[in-house]
């Protein structure tokens, strides 16, 4: 049907050519990339223009503590300390084509396409998930190697509870096995593992395992893997609102204290110093967020690829990072 309609429109508008599916044009960064350090307080229009400090390190989103809006009269360029510095990394650990100063600090991934991958090969759906786990392990290794500090993956959404029971049970046992496998290497490699989502809905053994692995890796600081399980971006905001309501009821805070910073502190991503992904990758060609982190994705660069998740490897990740590094992030300016 799409092809027929395409032909009809081509005939009617013969001088035009239809744009390809998901066209993204990459803009070259200006010579001195803009750097926007986002204030987390309630935003109101300034009475005079606030100039952003320019930096050669443009891309990563700010932490809560950085609030560097300077008045117009201090109009000088300064090199800011790179907010994604990983001092332990060698400069040449990055593949050619990527610039160290423009690496995202926090990457998020919607790992879509496992079932389609299995169906295309006449395999059981479980094989797709198992292949997906391998892709995830590769991605974790690459993030560690290339100095990305946080990786958040959408492993299981609240909507996924509606999948067939057998499939859900398979996934739960896959998670449990995966967490047990990763526990040892995480401790050795200084990787912190956090889980966001409503884990009370998970099998008891998995819930306990998650609490255990979070506790035993909580002091690891080289890299953080955040796994979103039984997670929904809207649920995250509802529970933050709920916590705020209880604090107001108990007199811990006033209603007038409610602002963006407070909500950020109550979201489940308060397990990390860098809650805002710089880059979101979604595989398998679906062009939507599907109720993943909503608040946190306010300024995130979105990269959609046709590759199915089990096929997503180093070359695909490199392509996503190169696309990210060519984006011009203006934050409304």
């Amino acid at each position, binding site marked *: *049907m799409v092809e027929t309609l395409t032909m009809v*429109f081509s005939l009617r508008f013969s001088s035009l050519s239809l744009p390809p599916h998901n066209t993204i044009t990459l803009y070259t960064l200006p010579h001195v990339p803009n750097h926007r350090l986002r204030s987390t307080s309630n935003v109101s229009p300034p009475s005079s223009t606030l100039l952003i400090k320019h930096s050669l390190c443009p891309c990563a989103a700010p932490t809560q503590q950085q609030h560097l809006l300077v008045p117009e009269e201090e109009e000088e360029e300064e090199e800011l300390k790179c907010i994604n510095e990983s001092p332990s990394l060698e400069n040449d650990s990055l593949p050619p084509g990527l610039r160290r100063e423009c690496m995202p600090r926090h990457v998020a991934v919607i790992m879509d396409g496992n079932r389609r991958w299995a169906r295309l090969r006449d395999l059981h759906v479980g094989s797709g998930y198992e292949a997906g786990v391998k892709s995830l392990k590769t991605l974790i290794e690459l993030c560690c190697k290339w100095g990305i500090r946080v990786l958040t993956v959408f492993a299981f959404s609240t909507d996924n509870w509606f999948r067939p029971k057998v499939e859900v049970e398979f996934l739960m046992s896959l998670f449990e096995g995966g967490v047990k496998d990763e526990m040892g290497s995480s401790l050795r490699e200084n990787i912190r593992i956090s889980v966001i989502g409503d884990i009370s809905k998970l099998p008891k053994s998995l819930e306990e395992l998650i609490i255990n692995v979070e506790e035993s890796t909580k002091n690891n600081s080289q890299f953080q893997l955040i796994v979103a399980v039984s997670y929904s971006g809207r649920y995250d*905001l509802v529970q933050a609102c*709920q916590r705020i309501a209880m604090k107001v009821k108990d007199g811990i805070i006033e209603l007038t204290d*409610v602002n963006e910073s407070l909500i950020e502190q109550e979201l489940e991503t308060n397990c990390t110093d860098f809650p805002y992904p710089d880059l979101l990758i979604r595989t398998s060609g679906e062009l939507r967020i599907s109720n993943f982190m909503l608040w946190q994705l*306010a300024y995130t660069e979105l*990269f959609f690829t046709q590759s199915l998740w089990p096929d997503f490897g180093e070359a695909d990740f490199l392509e996503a990072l190169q696309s990210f590094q060519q984006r011009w992030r203006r934050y409304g300016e």
Partner: protein
Amino acid sequence: MGPLPNHIAFIMDGNRRYAKKLNLIDGAGHKVGFLAVTSMLKFCYELGVRNVTIYAFSIDNFKRSPEEVQSLMELMQEKIEGLIKDESIVNCYGVRVYFVGNLKLLSEPVRLAAERAMLATAKNSKAVLSICVAYTSTNEIVNAVEESVEEKIEHHESEPLIKLVDIEKHMYMAVAPDPDIIIRTSGEARLSNFLLWQSAFCYLYSPSVLWPEIGLRHFLWAILNFQRHHSYLNKKGEQLQHLLQDGF
């Protein structure tokens, strides 16, 4: 032909790049951009899309140069006053207009013009146009959270329980259903703090065309792709209903 979207939202990006590309004076890109708004609205309402939302001015945009902000405010006031006229596009198509955002942040003339336009179109009932000005989604959510919490506290509930529907009804955008498509022009693929809550399941389309150059073919392409994905959206809608019933 497949189902039509009920709500399309636009992030109208690329006006300044368009002006630079054509060597136009500052502000001219936005004036041409307004013509694109008019044509997109016509396409939407002619096709039967009942709800349209446009991201006209973000709270973040206040950080642009004072001259640019002033020029944009003047353009907005001029165009808002145009909406009230009998022959305006909104009256031709029976469109009720809402200005969505933290309107207190606007200068008084613009805010008053917006209020007059909302009043003047209040009786229109065929379609809805939501114009996001002085808007960011995070600001909208903060406001909705404040109002939800205040409502529960006022009812003296010993254990206030906030649900998804409580927050939703306090959103500025509660005047329209969630968008089915968000179209952002100029090739940027990000939401820029626009409809973060409402876009949870919607189809995101980012053509490389600059906003003043958007035309019928881009509009139709977005519709066709929406139709291809529609069965997915239906399923999500049903699942969300279940979640709402479960008290999320």
